[in-house]
């Protein structure tokens, strides 16, 4: 079994979130580095907490993803999850196009 974290979308905002368990107190963060990673048996606690959050209408559709722990933090194993964690791989338009509007 691989190291895993739980991820979902926040119901209200729709943003990607990761589950943190701090002394069994669950919370959701948009920063993958703060996610609680677990393996095998200890994953059960994460799963339970994630499902509870779904029932409590905090998140939508939680699931576990494989991650790798590196010196610089947690990295998702697949391309898809890497993009979910860090956002589109392209520059968003607003940052690129500088349009100066003339006053009418």
């Amino acid at each position: 079994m691989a190291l895993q974290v739980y991820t979902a979308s926040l119901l209200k905002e729709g943003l990607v979130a990761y589950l943190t368990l701090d002394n069994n107190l669950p919370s959701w963060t948009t920063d993958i580095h703060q996610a609680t990673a677990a393996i095998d048996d200890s994953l059960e606690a994460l799963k339970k907490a994630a499902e509870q959050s779904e029932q409590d209408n905090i998140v939508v559709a939680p699931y576990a993803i494989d991650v790798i722990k590196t010196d610089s933090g947690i990295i998702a194993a697949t391309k898809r999850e890497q993009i979910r964690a860090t956002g589109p791989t392209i520059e968003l338009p607003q940052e690129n196009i500088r349009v100066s509007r003339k006053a009418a």
Partner: protein
Amino acid sequence: MYQYSDQDQQLLLERVAQFRGQVARRLKGELSEEEFKHQRLRNGLYLQLHAYMLRVAIPYGLLSSDQMRTLAHIARKYDKGYGHFSTRQNIQYNWPKLEDVPDILDDLAKVEMHAIQTSGNCIRNTTSDPLASVARDELEDPRPYCELIRQWSTFHPEFNFLPRKFKIAVSGATQDRAAVAVHDIGLRLIKNETSGENGFEVYVGGGLGRTPMIGKVIRSFLPKEDMLTYLEAILRVYNTLGRRDNIYKARIKILVHETGEDKFRELVEAEWEKIKAGGLYLKDEDFAWVKGFFKDPDYELLPDNDTEFENLLLSNTDFARWVDKNIELHKQSGYRIVYLSLKTAHQPPGDVTADQMDAIADLADKYSLSQIRTTHRQNLVLSDVKLQDLPALWEELKALDLATPNYNHVTDIISCPGLDYCALATARSIPISQAITERFDNYDFINDLGDVSINISGCINACGHHHVANIGILGVNKKGTEVYQLTLGGSAREDAAIGKIIGPAFEADEIVDAVEKVLSVYLENREDPEETFLMTYRRLGQAFFKERLYG
């Protein structure tokens, strides 16, 4: 343009209130995600890779400048300052919050806009020719018919839970700029040579996705009075018999295919016989009423030449290039149609910033009767620009980065959002489109290649229409890496065709080279510059290209 009546407006407000209630029930937990999904999907709201995505309908691709300003306002206030124009002439926002969506819909309703039926298994926004009413090759303006279809299909009580989504397109010109053959129903206005009356050639069962198909002509001439009764008959047969056991076989194209074209036609005609005299039969007064909204503006009587324009054409190559590529003749003397290219190397195809939207709205007010059209190739159109205004407009468009001279050329790429945004994606598509655009960002090369289309989809659902591009690119996931399949020979126009996969897929860093190779095979083997890529491909065949690409 169509003007809402009090009742149209009331319907929108009631719909927003209803959706506000649905969102509130969801946030309170009274609706499960599963149940809410059916509701939000009936209102254009998806949950994507990073956030919710809201798709706003632009009926048959026609926008007023005030509507464009509202789109800009929404991008700024509720999103990250930009929007994405889609291949079905709509606009999508990538970052709205669920709790903000009812407010967004309220703001849209103020300018007669909404997200009704922009997703879900219902009749979607009817699309049309972006050059409607101004093209020289037009038989009749298709938009009044689109408006009737819009009203008929909006909250149609019988057809709101179809086996699958349902897309209709209407074209009124010789050239097909609405891709009618790849829609569930495509209507092409034609003249009946015996009666002299206009009516429709009816295509059914086109579509892309996993099983791409070109629509079949199931009626060669349908009198226009019968348009809605006939549509109702087709939809009724589909709602009754369309497959519901397998989502991939649920589109009407599969029903037509499995039933057989002739049998399907028989079923439709039999149903139609029973309803053709009903309330949906269209009378002269109905046409007179709806056509009243789409009357030609009072065009000025202008000569079809202008000294300043002609001088600039001779003295400024950049202007001449733009005119050559992005300007089309108008049916009215002294006017021109202007394409605003949304395709540059540093901006995802179809993306427009809020500032650009506001500026485009101002340009429409200043130069083009306050209207803007969206196109199926993800560009915009100013449809009624005076020839004499072209130099000034060009200067303004350049400043906005909207004057790239590439309309219908190799860097005018259609691309779906792909893995950068889409939860269903198997690979990224925007970076590939950007890499191709960068590689070919050379006017002489683009010009020499002439008319050629590249479309990119990030998965088999084919939102980027890769099957009907001359050169189609499909991103797939092969053991965790993104690889790209090349499809050649497709077309979305009058000569619609589904392209064929040419061979094994390419890695992300090989695909641009592969496209370049295909283009060079064309350039080396065309008979003369008049022979387009598609003509050469059809003449020489797939094997010829395959051999040179992989050999």
